[in-house]
Each structure stands twice: as structure tokens, then as C-alpha cells.
């Protein structure tokens, strides 16, 4: 019985991945899975009962250097793209680096620009959001109401359990992203009461798998979190931080990083450092983007559609 149930779940997940594949084509190059966003797939968005949300990431409001002289303008363009989606999303998640330097004005601008959509926004901090003199107070005062610790929380929506994790606080010398024991203990308790059939979406700024250790693109103690998540039939992990799409599938878990709305960063190992990648102005919008996600109730399905600001 259990075995049948388990294999049934697996089939569902595989179907889900195949379906997601219509929106985000999985391919592997140089050991890093990548996806090709297809705007055309937007037209295939389900009309059946379910819900949609949009992931935006790494808006870096305040950034004004060669790689993008005006990160506010590109964020406004991203928000205009969300407003033009064929179906209004139920909510937005922002996977961190809202600001460039944790300044009140930067946070305020981001909030106002997203506020024009009139839909709820769930934020988690990136490392750029923790660098005010008080180490993240400005972000937490504005966006962290009803969160725990350095800003983590969870909520349920449409039969899906969403977990927002913070892996940019109290980073250890020589290390990468870090969740910490307090947050891991909270996560264990948070997941404890849930049926394994409940679809889970986890979001955090730095990838929860090691994309490229040399640039710190991973989370030192993510395995402890993933261990708690393995029993679930469908786990989708959404991250930012690396300003490009990378994907990985591991059992019932899929991992996806998103494009930035501010500037691209180099593909791992192709540059001396992960610093902002300056491309010709005409190419910039094609390297920035948003991600929409659609769930169909009863099918554990998630369709991720990455689209650029150029289209």
C-alpha cells in the first residue's frame, strides 16, 4: 500500500516535471543544468483551478554601475511585465537582495514599485539587505513582521506549504550561505505535522545546493534542511543570488535559481569573480527576468516559466 502510494507519487512528480518542461526546458551544459525560458509557454498556462505566483529576485535597488546604470528602471519594467501577465498572480515572492546597500530609500522604492501591483508580496533578505549598521534591522522592521529569528516564516496557500528560509545572516568565515541551528530546529517543528503528500515550496536567497563553491554559491548546512524535506512527494526550491537560471533535480526535489531584475552575473568559472557582468546595453534586458509559477490543485504540479525583460 505504502509502496503503491510512493510510486504513485513518483509518477505524479514525473508528470509534473514533464509538464513543467513545456515552460522551462531542462538542459545540462558544463555540469550546470540550465533552462530556456519560453514566453510562448505563458499561453499554455492552466485555466483549471489552482493558483499562480511570481518570483522576482535580486532587484538591487540603488545599484547604478556599468552593468546597469538604473536598477530601479529595470525593476519597474519587471513589475510592468507582471502586470501584463495573462492571469493576475495571487502573490509575489521576492527572493532577496531587494536593495543594494540596505538603505531605507532603496527598500522604500522597491516596496512602492511592487505596491503598484496591489497583490501581496512575501520577502526574504539577501546579504545586501543585512548591511545596515544594525545588521538587518531596516529590512526586518519593514518586511519582517510576524517572522522568526533573522526573518524566516512559513504559510499555506492553495493546499501548498510555503517555507521562507534565511541563509544570509551570521555568515561564517570561509563558508557559504548558512541557516543555523535555531532555524533548522524551527524548520523541523514547522514540517513535523504535515502529511508527506503536501506539496512544499521552499524559498531562500542563496541556493540550497552547491552551484559553485569557489564563489560561495551554496549553503553550508542545507543538507540538514533537505533531510527534513525528503519525505515529501513534491518539493520545489526557489533561490536567487546568482543572477542566472540554474536547475537541479534530486528525487522529489527540484531546485531553481532565478534571474535578477538588475544585472547578470557570469556563468561559474567563466570570469575571475562573480561580480556584475557588463553586457552591451542592447543585451541587458534579455539577461534579466521574472519567473511565474502555476499550481494545479490535486496534481502536485508546478509549472515554472522564466521570461526575460526583453520580450
Amino acid at each position, binding site marked *: 500500500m505504502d509502496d503503491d502510494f510512493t510510486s504513485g507519487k513518483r509518477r505524479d512528480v514525473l508528470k509534473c516535471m514533464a509538464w513543467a518542461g513545456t515552460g522551462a526546458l531542462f538542459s545540462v551544459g558544463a555540469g550546470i543544468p540550465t533552462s530556456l525560458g519560453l514566453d510562448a509557454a505563458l499561453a499554455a498556462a492552466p485555466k483549471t483551478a489552482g493558483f499562480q505566483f511570481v518570483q522576482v529576485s535580486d532587484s538591487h535597488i540603488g545599484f547604478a554601475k556599468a552593468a546597469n546604470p538604473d536598477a530601479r528602471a529595470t525593476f519597474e519594467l519587471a513589475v510592468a511585465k507582471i502586470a501584463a501577465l495573462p492571469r493576475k498572480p495571487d502573490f509575489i515572492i521576492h527572493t532577496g537582495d531587494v536593495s543594494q546597500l*540596505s538603505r531605507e530609500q532603496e527598500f522604500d522604492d522597491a516596496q512602492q514599485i511592487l505596491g503598484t501591483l496591489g497583490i501581496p508580496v512575501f520577502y526574504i533578505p539577501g546579504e545586501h539587505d543585512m548591511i545596515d549598521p544594525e545588521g538587518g534591522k531596516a529590512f526586518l522592521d519593514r518586511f519582517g513582521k510576524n517572522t522568526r529569528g533573522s526573518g524566516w516564516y512559513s504559510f499555506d496557500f492553495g493546499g501548498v506549504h510555503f517555507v521562507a528560509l534565511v541563509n544570509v545572516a551570521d555568515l561564517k568565515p*570561509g563558508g557559504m550561505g548558512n541557516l543555523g541551528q535555531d532555524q533548522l530546529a524551527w524548520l523541523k517543528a514547522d514540517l513535523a505535522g504535515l502529511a508527506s503528500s503536501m506539496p512544499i515550496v521552499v524559498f531562500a536567497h542563496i541556493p540550497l545546493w552547491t552551484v559553485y563553491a569557489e564563489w560561495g554559491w551554496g549553503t553550508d548546512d542545507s543538507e540538514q534542511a533537505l533531510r527534513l524535506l525528503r519525505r515529501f512527494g513534491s518539493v520545489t526550491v526557489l533561490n536567487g543570488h546568482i543572477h542566472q537560471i540554474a536547475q537541479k533535480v534530486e528525487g522529489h526535489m527540484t531546485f531553481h535559481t532565478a534571474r535578477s531584475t538588475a544585472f547578470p552575473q557570469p556563468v561559474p568559472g567563466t570570469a575571475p569573480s562573480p561580480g556584475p557582468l557588463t553586457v552591451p546595453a542592447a543585451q541587458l534586458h534579455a539577461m534579466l527576468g521574472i519567473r511565474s509559477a502555476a499550481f494545479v490543485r490535486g496534481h502536485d504540479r508546478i509549472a515554472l516559466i522564466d521570461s526575460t525583460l526583453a520580450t
Partner: protein
Amino acid sequence: MRLSLHMLTVSTAILLTAGITAAIAPSASAASPAQAETLVHIANFTFQRPVLPVSRGTTVIWVNDDDVPHTVVARDGSFKSHVLDTGDRFSFTFAKAGQFDYYCSLHPHMNGRVVVGA
């Protein structure tokens, strides 16, 4: 007159090139010979002199040449910069001998060491 104007222009240009303000610019001529200064550039997510031997009393000045902010934080808590945006500087005078390991708290894979001799 011509000469002093010329010198003013040159010094202004140097300040601008270095991306620093007059208020925090170290003045080489004002420093006494005993108070040595040395510069560590932060570029490409790297402390450019990862192991820096200095004599006691040396002031180490870090300057961020990257397009992203960095910090300079001692592992033992003996010094900690505010966030350094492009062109910003942080300095610390090493009064005690010893080995001081530091890192960037935003990008903790960036590590450096100052070794202060007797």
C-alpha cells in the same frame, strides 16, 4: 602661482581617481615616519594581499575596487568595517603583534590575514 594651481589640479585629480573624499584621505606628508601605512585593494572578490606582513604600529587601509560592497571583519572581533561600497576605505592600526585573520561578512569565502611582527 601657476605652479601651485598646477599642483592643486594634480592633487584633486589624484583624489578623484582614488575615489576618496578629502575627509578620509590619508595625508602621506602629515604622517610621521613611525606610522607606516599600507594599502590592500579589494578586487574581484579577493583581498589582493591575502597574507600581509607588517610591523607593529602599521595602519592597513583597505579600499574596495569592486562594483559590489564588501566588509572587512576580524575573526577575533578586533576590527570590523562598516559596509564598503565602491571606492570606500577602511583603516585599522595594528598596535599589537600577532596574526589577525579577517573575512568579508557578505562573501565569507573572501579571507585575508595580517601578520604583525614585533
